[in-house]
């Protein structure tokens, strides 16, 4: 029986730009449908249209029928009775989606007070129960806490509890796990799935990350530029994608995220010829004191790390947020000094040599956020030549820029334009060009593709691999994403809380992890074949 019918939904700006273009689909009672597409494709706008929460200044038309009732142009009074009651929504960013100055329990209890007319005490008791049901330990204590006192995973569980409080018949989840670490993501997805299975609520799961929907949804909608371009059972679309857009999305999924069993990569042989040798390296951070007189809080970001990186290899550092991977990489190329231990880079001992400037020519970095890594006030030409001038590199800089732009597949005329004129993928290529301009021997790539769409990720990774060979680079590749690391790296180290817990060839580490932590990481990856994370 049909629960939700969306017919010809169109959303446009007042100036006439069409953002969602005639989206039509229906969702059965208890059905579970995924809405997949890249950023800017209109996924979130579709969801917000159903909830009636589109921003002011957007024009919507078409029909949305929930349980026989037309709700697209219903007055707020009617929608308020539905929102949080018969339909509810789970948002992406668990920190900002919660009110920082209200206790978690009260926020979870709120829908019950609004729609069930419960007293504060009754709703509060139920909220504690709900928090327990989504797997939050000590729910009574957490209910009295404020959001900042909870971890990211707990906050997202609380939001799920909030969304399910009134037993809605429709739940819309918009990238519910994108902001979470992989192990936490697996737990939250499991909670979401098991809680939904225990009710007859229908789910519309919105994500750019295909494997996330694989284990949960039965049907799929593929959205591109505001239009639904493909639809069908999840299994069929993932196993044998027909539509070119779907095929492109599916092909962009790294091999490791496809099947439960990790595939073997083409083997690579790297001669043992260390360009970087690190022995027992540690580095602590004193968190900045917020006020004079407060004892400084010390964090051991990197804790007794030993490693050798060979000339010409792609060396992966993988770990969850806060594991110390970025700090380690910065130590390895002398951007920060270790507290203890020794690091030798290309024959230079970083711990004893006072002048680290020669190193600046040797190693360059590509950062995660292509928006923030380019100075918005400089032209592309200035951005790429600045390192050449700073490092006092001789020769014709203009030729060097032309050569490097060609290498990253950008037109030579981009030099006169500004960063905001480019897409995320193009900006990342500009950042790569800047890093390669001084012809470094070592390139540190710090989450270089995490902010990019899946299909752009693939292109960028291929480009990095190509450039590594062309420029004879040694690449240190940092990522939280195991499948990306598996795809591009020869050898990897897995970090947890500042320590290296496992290291070896990428295939060995990911196919037969020796350490429980690595095993948990590998098992947490959602797979396209629907083998749901344990």
């Amino acid at each position, binding site marked *: 029986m049909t629960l939700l019918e969306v017919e010809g939904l169109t959303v446009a700006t007042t100036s006439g730009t069409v953002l969602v273009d005639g989206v039509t689909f229906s969702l059965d009672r208890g059905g579970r449908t995924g809405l997949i597409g890249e950023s800017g494709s209109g996924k979130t706008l579709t969801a917000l249209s159903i909830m009636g929460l589109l921003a002011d200044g957007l024009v919507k038309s078409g029909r949305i029928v929930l349980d026989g009732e037309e709700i697209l142009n219903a007055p707020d009074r009617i929608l308020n009775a539905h929102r949080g009651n018969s339909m509810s929504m789970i948002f992406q960013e668990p920190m900002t989606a919660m009110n920082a100055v209200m206790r978690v329990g009260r926020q979870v209890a709120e829908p019950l007070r609004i729609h069930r007319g419960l007293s504060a005490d009754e709703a509060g008791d139920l909220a504690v129960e709900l928090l327990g049901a989504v797997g939050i330990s000590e729910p009574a204590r957490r209910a009295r806490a404020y959001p900042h006192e909870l971890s990211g995973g707990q906050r997202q569980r609380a939001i799920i509890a909030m969304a399910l409080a009134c037993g809605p018949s429709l739940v819309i989840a918009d990238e519910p796990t994108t902001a979470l670490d992989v192990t936490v993501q697996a737990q939250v997805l499991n909670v979401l799935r098991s809680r939904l299975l225990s009710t007859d609520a229908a789910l519309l799961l919105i994500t750019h990350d295909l494997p996330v929907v694989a284990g949960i949804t039965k049907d799929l909608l593929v959205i591109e530029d505001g239009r639904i371009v493909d639809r069908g059972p999840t299994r069929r679309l993932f196993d044998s994608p027909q539509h070119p857009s779907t095929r492109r999305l599916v092909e962009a999924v790294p091999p490791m995220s496809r099947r439960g069993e990790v595939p073997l990569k083409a083997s690579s042989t790297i001669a043992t010829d260390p360009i970087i040798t690190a022995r027992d390296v540690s580095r602590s951070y004193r968190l900045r004191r917020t006020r004079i007189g407060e004892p400084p809080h010390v964090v051991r970001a990197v804790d007794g790390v030993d490693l050798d990186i060979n000339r010409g290899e792609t060396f992966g550092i993988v770990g969850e947020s806060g594991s110390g991977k970025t700090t380690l990489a910065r130590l390895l190329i002398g*951007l920060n000094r270790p507290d203890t231990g020794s690091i030798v880079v290309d024959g230079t001992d970083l711990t004893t040599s006072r002048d680290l400037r020669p190193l600046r020519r040797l190693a*360059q970095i590509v*950062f995660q956020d292509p928006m*923030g*890594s380019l100075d918005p006030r400089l032209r592309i030409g200035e951005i790429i030549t600045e390192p050449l001038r700073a490092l006092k590199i001789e020769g014709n800089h203009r030729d060097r820029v032309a050569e490097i732009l060609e290498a990253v597949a950008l037109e030579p005329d981009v030099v006169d334009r500004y960063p*905001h*004129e480019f*897409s995320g993928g193009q900006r990342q290529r500009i950042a790569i060009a800047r890093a390669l301009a001084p012809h470094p021997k070592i390139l540190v790539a710090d989450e270089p593709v995490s902010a990019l769409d899946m299909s752009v990720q693939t292109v960028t990774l291929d480009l990095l691999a190509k450039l590594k060979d062309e420029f004879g680079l040694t690449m240190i590749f940092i990522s939280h994403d195991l499948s990306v690391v598996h795809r591009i790296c020869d050898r990897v180290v897995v970090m947890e809380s500042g320590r290296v817990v496992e290291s070896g060839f990428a295939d060995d580490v990911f196919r037969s992890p020796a350490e429980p932590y690595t095993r948990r990481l590998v098992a947490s990856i959602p797979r396209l074949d629907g083998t749901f994370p344990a």
Partner: protein
Amino acid sequence: MRWKRVNLVVGTAIVLVVVVTALVSYVWTPFDPERISSTERLLGVGENGHMLGTDQFGRDVLSQIMVGSQTALFVGILAVGIAVVVGIPIGGVAAARRGWSEDVVMRMSDVIYAFPPVLLAILLVAAVSPGIGPAMVAIGIAYVPIVARVTRGAALSVFERDFVSAARTYGRGKSYIFIRHVLPNIASVLIVQITVLFALAILAEAALSFLGIGAQPPRPSWGRSLRDAQTFIQLSPRLAVWPGLAIAFTVLGFNLLGDGLRDALDPRLEVRRV
């Protein structure tokens, strides 16, 4: 969008009118603003060719208001100049260095922040002498913490951006990074702040001159005209209207300009993609 343009256009127009008035008044005013005439005291609007009438000494009100704009702009430029020249480096150093030096700088600025311009001026005037000089210095010093804080706040977020880290990897020092990368990126914030401070400085000068501790005769000043008008408020309330309007008009102009600039310069409003 249209509203924002209105601010910018009207603000710019008003500021231009004030600037042109000040420049013109150096070479021409309808009457000699200082000419005292016992026969033309307290004339009404338009009488004897005095478009805005005359004051209790028979001086032409319009001419006085015209020359008053010189003082208003002069004070704005000098006071804000002091605040900018001292405040931006302080804020920049605090943002670049962090650590204890930042603590000390910000605590000091907290304390100076507790001295309102009028109070600082009273102190300076008591120690030196009444006059436009001490008044301007006092206003300027009082605004130093504001500029320093705004600079620091904006610079901190730029210093955390990856392009600053990238500049570090190719060996740029912090002062170079501040001037080359950070300042251009916080310029719009600073320009808006400077415009608003300009308006505040004009208000502060008016208040100080009204109290008799700012501009001293013969320097023309709207604030002092109001001080003179207060004595005659029962007799001729009209005299209190024109200088006040002049102040409000000028301040409104700078405030509108500030708002308009903020809307026009804010890069978030203009994100174009290929």
